[in-house]
Every structure is written in C-alpha cells, then in structure tokens.
C-alpha cells in the first residue's frame, strides 16, 4: 500500500456521533466572558491572594522583626545613656569626696616627709661622728701600718748576695763596658781638642771636651749611678807620652790613656804618679 492510499484511508476515518444530550449540556454550560467577568475577577483576586500569601506572611514577619529590633535598639540606647549619666554622677561625687579630704591628707604627708628628713639628718650626723672618730685614728693606723711593713720586710727571706746574683753581675759587667766606651769617647775628644788646638797637650778640664761630645751630660759620668764624674788624672798631658793615664773611673777602675786606649785595671794594677803624670804599674 502506497502513501497516497494510506492517506486516503486515514482521511476516511470513522466519525462517532455525539450523544444526544451533549449539545444541550454544552449550551447550558456556556459561560461567556462578559457574564462571568465579575466571577473571574473575584476568582483571580482570590488566586492572587493565595499566590501572595507566603510573600505577605514573610513581609509581615520581617516587618515585625524590624520593629522588634528597632524597639530593642532604642531601649539599649536609652540604657546606655542612663549608664553614662550614672557614671558621670559617680565620678562627680568621687571628685567631690577627694576634694574634701585633700587638705588633711596633704598636711599629713608633709609631716611624714619632715619626719623622714629629720631621721635622715640624725642618721647623717651619726655618720659624720663615726667618720671623725675614724679620722682621729688614722695616724695611729698609719704608724701601725709602717711597723707592720717593717715587720713584714724583716720577715722576708734575704735575697741572693750580689756576688751570687747572676743578673747583678751581668748588669755590672754591662755598666763597666759602657764605662769603657765613655772613657774611649773622652780620650778621642781630648785628642781632637789637642789637634784643633794645634798642640800636643790634652785639655786640662772636662769643660773643653763638651763641644766634642754628642751627649756630654751622659759621657762625663759613669753609667753605674749616672752621678759619679770621671776624674782627669793628667790634665795637659802631652801626646808624646802615650802611656800616661789621662782619665779614670773611680767606680770601675777603668783608665783612659793619652794614646786613646782604655784599660780595665784589675786589683793587681796600681796607678803611680811621676812628674805630675800618672802611669800604670803592676
């Protein structure tokens, strides 16, 4: 069967006849818009109310909440205001009470302070008396201190003898060598002075030698104590007598000859004077 035949048969589908009373029923049910306008509006208004009831309910509840919150907020603000007022009144009363008690309190404090100052003054006076007593005892204490020092020094064991002290020996030997050096400088200065004087005689005093010495303050004294001057034994000695002793150290027994040499004399050596000139002999 092709589609045309199918369509043809479909268009011939049977039509059932309506029941007899249906037409009258339908006509009796006619409810035209004009006649039913009020009913529809009423129905619509009813449905509108039903539709908006939840929203209206929520709005009423929300409005109620807002009102309650507003009332509570105003009540809280009022209570805060009262609290502030009462606090201000309390502070005012407290300040009044403080002002009433201020004068006695101040005088009491001042008296207390004066008493403290008086006690401090008495304490300081006692301190001064005690210090004065200690000051009076000071010379006695110093004397005791000196005695104690002497006692202590006496109790200290004796040190080594000078001849046993190695360091003292070395120190003495070094001083003797320096003394030799001084004497050599003096003899050299004397010979230069004689050369400058165009004579063969050496100077007669140490003052003539000072211009020829770099540090005359040191060179003219023995280095052992720095205060013992060298002794010119043969002033004006002639260079033609080179074995004549020109200068001597009385501490170390060192001698400087006219020829410029220096000798460290041992105890076996003796200085002998001949014709106002000194010589070394054994």
């Amino acid at each position, binding site marked *: *069967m*092709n*589609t045309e*035949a*199918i*369509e043809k*048969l*479909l*268009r*011939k*589908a*049977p*039509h*059932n*006849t*309506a*029941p007899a009373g*249906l*037409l009258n*029923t*339908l*006509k009796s*049910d*006619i*409810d*035209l*818009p*004009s*006649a*039913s306008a009020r009913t*529809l509006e009423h129905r619509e208004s009813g449905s509108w109310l039903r539709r908006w009831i939840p929203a209206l309910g929520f709005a009423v509840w929300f409005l109620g909440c807002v009102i309650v919150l507003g009332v509570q907020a105003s009540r809280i603000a009022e209570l805060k205001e009262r609290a502030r007022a009462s606090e201000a009144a309390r502070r005012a009363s407290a300040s009044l009470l403080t002002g009433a008690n201020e004068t006695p309190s101040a005088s009491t404090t001042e008296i207390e302070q004066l008493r403290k100052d008086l006690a401090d003054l008495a304490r300081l006076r006692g301190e001064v008396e005690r210090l004065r007593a200690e000051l009076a005892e000071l010379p006695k204490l110093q004397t005791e201190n000196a005695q104690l020092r002497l006692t202590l020094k006496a109790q200290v064991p004796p040190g080594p003898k000078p001849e046993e002290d190695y360091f003292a020996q070395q120190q003495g030997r070094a001083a003797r060598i320096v003394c030799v050096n001084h004497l050599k400088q003096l003899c050299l200065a004397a010979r230069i002075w004689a050369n400058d004087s165009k004579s063969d005689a050496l100077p007669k005093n140490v003052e003539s030698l000072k211009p020829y010495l770099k540090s005359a303050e040191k060179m003219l004294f023995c280095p052992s104590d720095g205060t013992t001057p060298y002794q010119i034994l043969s002033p004006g000695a002639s260079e033609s007598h080179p074995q004549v002793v020109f200068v001597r150290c009385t501490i170390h027994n060192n001698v400087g000859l006219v020829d410029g040499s220096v000798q460290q004399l041992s105890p076996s050596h003796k200085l002998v004077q001949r014709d106002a000139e000194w010589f070394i002999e054994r």
Partner: protein
Amino acid sequence: MSDDVKNLVERAKSGDRSAASQLITEFYERIFAYFRRRCGNDEDAADLTQKTFCKVWTSLKNYDQRSSFNTWLHSIAHHVYVDWRRVNHRLDPQSDEWWDACIADEPGPFENAAEGEAAHQLYRAVEQLNDEQRDIVHLHYYQSLSIQETADALSIATSTVKYRLRNALTALQGRLTEPKLHV
C-alpha cells in the same frame, strides 16, 4: 476562518449566548469525535468536550484570532486531552478491540470489504505509533486540519509537522507490509 465563524466569535466575546450556541453547534461533533477516538468511550469524550468548551469560554477574551477558531479549539482540545491522560495515567493507546468495535459500529465510507479490512489494519497501526506521530495523524487526517493548522494547534513548526507526518506514513507503510504480525 469563515466570516460567519469570525462574526460568531466576536459576538460571543461580547456576551452573545446565541452566537456561542451556534459555535457549539458548529464544532462540538468534531471535538467529540476527536476525544472519542482518543479516549475510547463516550463518557470520557463527553466530559472532555464539556471541559474544552468551558476553557473556550474562559479563554475567549484572550483569543486574538491570529489562527482560525477551529485551530484554536483543537489546540485547547489537545491540551485538555494531554492533561486528562496525565491525570488519569492513560498512557496506553487504544486497543485493537476498540477499533474493531468502532469500525463495526459504523456503516463506513469504504468501497468494499477489502478496503475496510485495510482501513482496519491501518487504524490499528496508527495506535501503535509513538505519541508525537499519533497526535499529528489524529489532527491532520482524522480532524482534517491543514499542515499549518496542525502546527498551530500543537505549537510546533510546520516543518516539524511534515517531518513527523513523513515518518508516520513510512512507519505505517512498513507495518502494513507485514500484516500477519499485527493480526
């Protein structure tokens, strides 16, 4: 839409009951036949017809005559039927027995017994189509609505109507070529 129907609609809008009566007289049998085919019994068809016309009178003020009154009426009838099916859970199509009884009751426009037999098979095959194709066949062929009117009544595009019609005819043709399976 004919001028007479337009005139009757206008008069009914203005509250003329006689015009409304004339509109009922003009269309109630077609609407009843539509429901009779779809529901399967006179009582439900009569109830749905009444409900349809009640909705017509209620919605008549909103009818702007952009489509014909017949189309608008069938649109309301279709929605009434859909609601009725949903409320009553009538999701199954008409049975073969119903169509047998329906055709046997009618004298029938068929030229011979063979055509009547073919029509019998065809109507049973229509009830086995899906809902969309069955709605199209009922409105376009059984209710004699045009393609455009069918599209307006179902609120779909004409191209959709044509597509569904072509699918429905193809399906019917396929089912009629294997008649033994459906007898």
